[in-house]
């Protein structure tokens, strides 16, 4: 009997291989499997080109550099210092860039006139931070961008009027809420504001000054956007450019090389009346940093055109190499502003990248969809083709038929995907020089890792194959369970311990030979996906997958014996 079954299984496998392996409809699976190989081939070509380039650059340099020499370059160094350290750059680029100058219309100082309004009780947003500060608050525009206190100093004089901005790194500005802000008692001729808008110009905003007798003066004012990315800054009527800054700060502590502005506004008050309160418009996007009341009339306006002064700033790029690593130094105005050390080849990093591609792309997507296509086709495809009865009318036990089809699918997927993985490993190790390759393979467990990758690939085909064969049999539309399995596998780290075991990826993760370190700053949820906090031993993992697959296949064999031929039209 067993001999008969084997003969029948082989007949089924032959039939299925003809339909999967050698049919045009199977072409997409080859493409799926070949894509990562092509990716690594392209990577190898680029690496080899970069290596040649590095050697060329190193050769052209004044002196032979080491990795430590390259690491010695720091931001802020002058070009002379860089050349003294590393020699004349083998590759150099030079250009000029138009930038607004670090000139401000409002000068720093405390000797201006007027009565500054104390806005501190009304401060409701953080708009100024010192450079390199990391902060969590929303910032001026609620997207983490703020003025730099290194540029926007606290006390400014514009047209002789004194403005006192709030302290940096704290609540220091007021956005409009429609609530009255108390003004110092007195009779004043003008109200001056240092303000700007966010998210584009804000037009037709009402500024109201209420007097003690209950009357009020209401002014309608347009505000320009604080960001230089918005065209025509400072060109609204009644607006003057107070401070122009070449960059702004971001919440992650970096500088955003985007110009930013602060504008001055002056409103004529009824000097016969005593002021009581100032009401800003109820608009989150109108932001006031400082307010001052003056007894004299409006002073001299500076920069009425609103155009910030621009200068040509010389930029340079120097490229150095020690033969393996390339250093790209960006200089602006003779000072180092940007350093990019491109390490051309780093075996530990490359291994981690390979492991990441394997675990997160090849296993979870390429093999997943490849197995979905092949195994789902075994029964569901035959039903759609209305050819399943051909098998059911043969003198063959249905579970033997199912076993034959499953083995055919497994053989096809293993051949395709294990071969692809082998090619990837060959291409990956092909980047190394022979000595490094030997070291990696025989001393750094590279060979064991390669075998592990191939084994995990085969086990993945086994596990996913069993699930998709069952799905194709049990469901009229297997895409639903396929999508559910995709989500289930992705959510595996978040499942309870018992439910985790009913997942292929749970066992496969523990069998992957290289751990992927969690990058710093990764949110905890995402780090759960990357890491493997509770790995299981290799024998348990292999047994787990095999048992899981066998369980699913048992269910499938019950189902296939009860299957009826009842083709429905699409």
């Amino acid at each position, binding site marked *: 009997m067993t001999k*008969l079954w084997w*003969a*029948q299984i082989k*007949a*089924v496998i*032959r*039939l299925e291989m*003809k*339909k999967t392996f*050698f*049919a045009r*409809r199977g072409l997409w699976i080859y493409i799926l499997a070949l894509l990562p190989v092509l990716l690594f081939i392209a990577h190898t070509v680029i690496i080899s080109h970069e290596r040649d380039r590095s050697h060329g650059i190193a050769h052209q340099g004044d002196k032979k550099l080491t990795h430590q020499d390259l690491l010695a370059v720091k931001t802020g160094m002058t070009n002379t210092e860089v050349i003294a350290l590393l020699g004349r750059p083998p590759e150099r680029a030079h250009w000029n860039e138009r930038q607004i100058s670090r000139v401000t219309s409002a000068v720093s100082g405390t000797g201006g006139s007027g009565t500054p309004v104390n806005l501190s009780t009304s401060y409701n947003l953080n708009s100024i931070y010192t450079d390199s500060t990391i902060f969590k608050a929303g910032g001026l525009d609620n997207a983490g961008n703020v003025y730099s206190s290194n540029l926007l100093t606290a006390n400014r004089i514009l047209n002789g009027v004194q403005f006192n901005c709030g302290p940096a790194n704290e609540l220091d500005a007021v956005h409009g809420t429609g609530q009255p802000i108390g003004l110092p008692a007195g009779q004043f001729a003008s109200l001056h504001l240092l303000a700007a808008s966010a998210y584009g110009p804000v037009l037709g905003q009402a500024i109201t000054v209420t007097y003690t007798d209950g009357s009020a003066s209401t002014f309608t004012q347009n505000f320009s956007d604080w960001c230089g990315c918005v065209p025509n800054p400072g060109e609204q009527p009644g607006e003057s450019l107070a401070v122009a800054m070449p960059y702004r700060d971001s919440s992650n502590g970096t500088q955003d090389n985007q110009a930013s502005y602060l504008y001055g506004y002056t409103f004529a008050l009824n000097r016969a009346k005593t002021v009581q309160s100032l009401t800003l418009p109820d608009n989150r996007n109108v932001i006031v940093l400082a307010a001052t009341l003056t007894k004299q009339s409006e002073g001299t306006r500076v920069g009425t055109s609103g155009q910030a002064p621009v200068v040509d700033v010389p930029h340079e790029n120097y490229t150095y190499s020690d033969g393996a690593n390339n250093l790209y130094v960006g200089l602006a105005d003779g000072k180092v502003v940007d350093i990019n050390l491109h390490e051309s080849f780093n075996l530990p990093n490359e291994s981690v990248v390979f492991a990441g591609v394997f675990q997160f792309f090849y296993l979870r997507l390429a093999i997943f969809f490849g197995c979905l296509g092949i195994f789902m086709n075994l029964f569901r495809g*035959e039903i759609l*083709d*209305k*050819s399943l*009865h*051909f*098998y*059911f*009318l*043969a*003198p*063959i*036990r*249905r579970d*033997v038929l199912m076993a034959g089809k499953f083995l055919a699918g497994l053989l096809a997927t293993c051949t395709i995907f294990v071969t692809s993985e082998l090619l990837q490993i060959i291409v990956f190790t092909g980047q190394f020089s022979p000595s490094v390759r030997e070291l990696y393979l025989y001393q750094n467990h590279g060979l064991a890792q390669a075998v592990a990758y191939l084994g995990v690939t085969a086990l993945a085909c086994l596990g996913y194959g069993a699930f998709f064969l069952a799905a194709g049999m049990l469901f009229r539309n297997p895409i639903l369970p396929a999508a559910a399995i995709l989500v289930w596998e992705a959510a595996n780290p978040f499942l309870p311990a018992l439910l985790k075991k009913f997942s292929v990826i749970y066992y496969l993760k523990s069998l992957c030979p290289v751990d992927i370190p969690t990058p710093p700053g990764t949110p905890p949820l995402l780090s759960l996906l990357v890491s493997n906090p509770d790995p299981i031993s290799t024998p348990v993992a292999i047994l787990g997958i095999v048992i899981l697959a066998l369980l699913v296949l048992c269910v499938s064999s019950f189902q296939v*014996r*009860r299957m*009826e*031929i*009842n*083709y429905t039209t699409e």
Partner: protein
Amino acid sequence: MSEVKQSDRIVFEDVSKFYGEILGVNRVNLSIPPGVTSLVGPNGSGKTTLMNLMTGLVRPTRGRIHVLDYDPSEPEKLFKILGYSTQFDAFPKGLTGFQFVYSYLRLGGSDAETASQMAWRAIERVGLIDAAPRNVAAYSKGMRQRIRLAQALCHNPRVLILDEPLNGLDPLARAEMIALFRATAAEGCYVIISSHILHEVDAISDQVILLSNGYVVAEGQIHSVRDEIREHPAQILIRCDRPRDLAAKMMESEHTIEVRIHNDEHGLLIKTRDADRFYLMLNHIALNGVEIESVAPADDDVNSVYEYLIGSDEVAR
């Protein structure tokens, strides 16, 4: 009556099949002997359902089925002795005609050489030797029908179930296939055919099963079935030299319902309630001088039986 051995028959014991709420067949009790048995009925009457039940492609909702000594739920045993040519006009992709038959035999466990020989023999029997190396997807309808027949016949089955086997065949091929079915039945095999072509069913069938709306309306040999239909008087066609005299004499008897003279004045059609008494009377009349050339029943065929049993159902509906 000798006891019918289960192993000699294809037996349906109170079989019903429902597709959800839709009735396939209901309370079918059949015992099919060797020979050519035709399943006759309008579309949707349950012919294909019966065939699928026999072959295990569907399972009965109720009842039991035995095909000789085999249970349809054991295909590994059943299909060694059974061949089924289905109505489905779809084939596994990418196979040639030869591969289609050959791989079926390999699935059954035959070795390569035996399977090849048997496949070629079957293909030769259906006349597709030249087309065998071509892809089945490129075959005409008739060729696809023939290759399905080849697959059903290739392992020399004892039971041959053929769902509308003459569909798409030209007259010559039909004649060849009919001869093949008769030859197979003559060897003691069971040939079960479903067809709409009633005169061919008449010509080849030993027994007939009439189905309507999932019920078996009649089964057995055509003559026996016709005899059982008492509510329709027998129609007999007589050719003679003096039809009017004969008609007058016939009208004298109480069991004669209607007599109609043929246009050529050499024949008449008689409807009688009692065919046996009619024949006795005819003998008597013939002995008394009327020259009778031929006597033949006019409605003792499948067509008439179909119309009486199933046609009336359709009208009533």
